[in-house]
């Protein structure tokens, strides 16, 4: 093969992978110009054959291709898949979740990859995990309620603080601030002693025990280290590097932690990905999550069907669900919408708004009994009389 042929191949309207495959199989072979032409014609005609034909009902095919295997999936799984100890929704419920574009999956998790300096040592990986895992104040020391003086006393354990790489001063500052900010509870005074590592909370209302216990509850559970939404972090070694798996997801927060590889870290929360990384990343996330869910159940669905669904969901710049609040509910045609769900509401609303149905789509035409615009139904012939005498 020579460079002329390579250029010829590139100038053809073939997909990138087909071109590369063709080049790869031709390199190092003696091909005459004539043979080359023959090969090109063959490749081209094969490619044309594999293309979807105009007016093909790809949506229906995709729906069936995902729907039918869906019937074979497990309805409820409480499996601890992939990672030990972390529970992830799988099977049909997860697939439904993806298609419904839920704001928050029922089991959000993240896979946090680390940068070079952190990824090869368990200890260093643990260090990053302390910055991520949400740790409530009671893990750092003893909390006692002093009924006599109406106080909540926190005795910090210095060994724990050292191990988790957080200074006593930081905790003394963070705890009251976070109770005020995150819990909107302000009726207390606070006194901290860095030397003794003691923090004393006093409620403003010193008459009420109820108030005191309420304060104690806030003090016990306030998150002083880590990211609020991430409840648990598990460190695992995979392919020579340490990866953190989490229960709970907060991409934005995790990206700000030192040591986290911001190019590979991912979440299973699709709308979060779309918000933080853009709609195209959201599209990729839908494809990956759906494909993983199906493959995990041993079901092979062609990626093209899933790509079509993902494209539809991300068409308008944000992730939309397949359903009456998303794609199906935003169709132009009244009859098409009414055929999907909540029929009466749609018809009533359309009547009030004086909507007109142009009968351009498939569903509407099936309803009124006309040929649908798919396949041969979409082709219209107009006779051009050439020798007509009037």
């Amino acid at each position: 093969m020579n460079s002329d042929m390579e250029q010829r191949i590139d100038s053809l309207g073939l997909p990138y992978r087909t071109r590369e495959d063709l080049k790869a199989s031709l390199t190092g072979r003696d091909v005459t110009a004539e043979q080359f032409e023959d090969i090109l014609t063959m490749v081209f005609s094969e490619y044309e054959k594999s293309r979807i034909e105009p007016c093909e009902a790809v949506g229906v095919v995709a729906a069936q291709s995902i729907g039918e295997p869906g019937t074979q999936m497990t309805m409820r799984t409480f499996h601890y898949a992939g990672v030990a100890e972390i529970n992830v929704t799988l099977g049909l419920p997860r697939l439904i979740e993806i298609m419904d574009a839920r704001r928050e999956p029922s089991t959000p998790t993240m896979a946090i990859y680390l940068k070079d300096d952190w990824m090869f040592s368990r200890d260093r990986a643990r260090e990053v995990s302390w910055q991520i895992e949400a740790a409530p104040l009671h893990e750092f020391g003893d909390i006692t309620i002093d009924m006599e003086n109406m106080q909540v006393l926190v005795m910090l354990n210095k060994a724990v603080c050292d191990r988790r790489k957080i200074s006593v001063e930081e905790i003394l500052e963070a705890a009251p601030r976070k109770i005020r900010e995150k819990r909107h509870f302000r009726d207390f005074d606070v006194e901290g002693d860095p030397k003794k590592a003691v923090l004393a909370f006093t409620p403003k209302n010193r008459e009420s025990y109820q108030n005191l216990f309420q304060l104690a509850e806030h003090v016990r559970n306030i998150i002083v280290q880590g990211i609020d939404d991430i409840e648990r972090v598990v460190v695992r070694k995979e392919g020579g590097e340490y990866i953190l798996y989490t229960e709970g997801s907060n991409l934005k927060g995790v990206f700000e932690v030192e040591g986290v590889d911001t190019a590979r870290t991912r979440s299973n929360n699709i709308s979060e990905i779309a918000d933080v990384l853009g709609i195209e990343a959201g599209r990729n996330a839908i494809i990956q999550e759906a494909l993983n869910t199906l493959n995990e159940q041993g079901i092979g669905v062609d990626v093209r069907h899933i790509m079509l669904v993902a494209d539809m969901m991300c068409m308008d710049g944000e992730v939309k669900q397949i359903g009456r609040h998303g794609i199906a509910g935003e169709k132009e045609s009244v009859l098409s919408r009414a055929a999907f769900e909540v029929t009466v509401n749609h018809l009533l609303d359309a009547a009030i708004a004086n909507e007109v149905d142009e009968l351009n789509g498939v569903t509407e035409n099936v309803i009124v009994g006309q040929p649908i615009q798919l396949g041969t139904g979409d082709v219209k012939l107009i006779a051009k009389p050439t020798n007509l005498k009037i």
Partner: protein
Amino acid sequence: MGTSLDVLKHEMVPNHQIMDDEEVTDLLATYHLSLDQLPKIYHDDSAVKAIGGEVGDVIRITRESRTAGRAEAYRLVVKRPKK
């Protein structure tokens, strides 16, 4: 803290590129499209902000496709509608 986020470097974000007017005219002519028939992307989308796209621009997205190896897609930048 240390790490800064570069959206475009993330594995899941394909290459985004703003197209110039000539390319847009070509694109619309080849596919017999009007501008508003293109898929949309919001002006405050992280990737659009990262490359400095503005409302009315057309973005060329070069995706790593599982079927074609590499595939191009196009999106028109629009303003995010108010809820």
